[in-house]
């Protein structure tokens, strides 16, 4: 369990965070530093992918690569289940880019629900001076952590 913290990396999840690597266009290729982290953090950070997609999920757009992990808004799906997201706006590989107008017909991104969790607590404090008005509320945003299983866009291969 990640418990709001990212296992092994020591950094907290933020809403909308995407963890993934894509080093297609780097003239130098994967850096030695990345190669080292790849060994220690392999379960969390996937190796550089050769294609990506931009997919819309609950009103937000994410740039995803195969095997990347993203922190989305709470989804009503059990852990371990897979979801097929068909709102793909763009897909790209090293050879071509497919742009949807606005969506790519037939393309989809399959994600697996890894975890339901909450972000760190945020104190919502409001106050009006000299009016006796103060509100102290704790808030923990519900998030779902999903892993991208597959990016399916036939146009990329055509």
């Amino acid at each position, binding site marked *: 369990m990640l418990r709001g913290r990212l296992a092994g990396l020591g950094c907290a999840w933020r809403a909308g965070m995407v963890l993934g690597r*894509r080093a297609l266009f780097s003239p130098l290729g994967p850096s030695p530093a990345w190669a080292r982290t790849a060994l220690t953090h392999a379960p969390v950070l996937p190796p550089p992918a050769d294609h990506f997609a*931009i997919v819309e999920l609950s009103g937000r757009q994410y740039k995803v690569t195969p095997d990347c992990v993203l922190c989305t808004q709470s989804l009503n799906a059990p852990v371990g289940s897979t979801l097929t997201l068909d709102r793909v706006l763009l897909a790209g590989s090293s050879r071509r*880019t497919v742009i949807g107008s606005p969506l790519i017909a037939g393309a989809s991104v399959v994600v697996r629900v890894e975890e339901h969790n909450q972000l760190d607590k945020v104190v919502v404090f409001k106050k009006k001076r000299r009016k006796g008005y103060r509100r102290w509320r704790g808030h923990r945003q519900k998030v779902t952590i999903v892993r991208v299983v597959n990016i399916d866009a036939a146009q990329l291969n055509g």
Partner: protein
Amino acid sequence: MFCALLGSLATRISARTSALRPALLLAQPARELTTRKETILRMAKGYRGRSKNCWRLARQRVEKALQYSYISRRLKKRDARKGWIMQLNAGAREYNMRYSQLINGLTLARIGLNRKVLSQLAIQEPYSFRAVITEARGALERKAASLGTRARAADGAIPQ
């Protein structure tokens, strides 16, 4: 054999725990209760001067800080959008196009990518970003052609 052993062990442990329950509860350290004062003083750690130690000052500073953070959570969204727009403007200008023309072209081309993702493309996927620019430019040119304003295009209203 091993499982049976484990099972008997488990029952024995649970029997012992239930028998010793009141004693165990007493033996356990009291649950850490934090008062409101402690919470606020902890939040004031690292503040400058007496604000980190004195209750009265700490409370004032923490309350003001929390009000600022309430405001800033909203400002953060605006600032992020401003940043994406600046990034996009710079990216578009590399292809002799202004930000406003890019957005107009994207609307005409019915491309629904948002500014966050477009700026990501501009930084991380230069080839894909160029493809998006090309689509936007094509849409602008088609619009101009349909309006019969080729002359305006030649004047540079439509970037080439």
